[in-house]
């Protein structure tokens, strides 16, 4: 299991493949992953950049605990969370969650759990810069389950 906090742009595929090279090939059958990417619009406005503030010591601890809970609660082999902080431009990845397991149901469930848990618990805060150079804090994450 691993937690990464990146102050600079990261490439999700590189993080995944680096992590996967530490696992035994042939031992897992399912990998579910999710990447959240910065969009250039939000709530009807053009967004030119974003600053992601966080509480570093708490972030690391909370993300580690979220991964531990996923491994305890789902039948999975391993999990990973990577999160960007600092100034972010549109098109750049913000977050990566990934899960490895024997079967697909647990991988899908756990990958989604990681995203929902970090979106509601991990101490990150987004501040958007709009095209007129004004700034605004994102107020609230919306729940990610449609049902």
């Amino acid at each position, binding site marked *: 299991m691993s937690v990464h906090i990146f102050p600079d742009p990261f490439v999700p595929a590189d993080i995944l493949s680096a992590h996967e090279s530490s696992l035994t090939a042939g031992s897992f059958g399912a990998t579910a992953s999710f990447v959240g990417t910065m969009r250039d619009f939000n709530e009807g406005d053009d967004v030119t950049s974003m600053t992601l503030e*966080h*509480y570093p010591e708490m972030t690391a601890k909370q993300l580690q605990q979220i991964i531990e809970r996923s491994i305890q609660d789902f039948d999975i082999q391993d999990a990973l969370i990577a999160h960007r902080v600092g100034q972010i431009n549109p098109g750049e990845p*913000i*977050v990566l969650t990934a899960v490895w397991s024997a079967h697909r149901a647990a991988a899908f469930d756990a990958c989604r759990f990681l995203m929902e848990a970090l*979106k509601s618990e991990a101490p990150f*805060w987004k501040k958007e810069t709009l095209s007129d150079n004004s700034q605004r*804090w994102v*107020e609230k994450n919306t729940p990610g389950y449609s049902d």
Partner: protein
Amino acid sequence: MAVYSPLVTTKGTISTLMTIKAKFFATLRESLNIEQVDVNSDEVANVTDVWRVATAGEPMPDHVLCSVNLEHMPADTVVKDGDEIAFFPPVTGG
């Protein structure tokens, strides 16, 4: 981490002069213009007290979240010497 200053009392037992660290993030940091402040542990019993002393009596907005030593905790949590308390708005990561 808070600085621990051990003192030997006249009775020979060891006491400590302690502080509680209070941190503020995002909108709270900006609106209060406080990033971090130390609070004398003698003046506070719980997290709400830490807010009151640290902000010099500013009312606590709705929906403020609190943490004690990097864990989410309710505002009535009892605090102790050396604790790190943080106050922040709803999180918006991911």
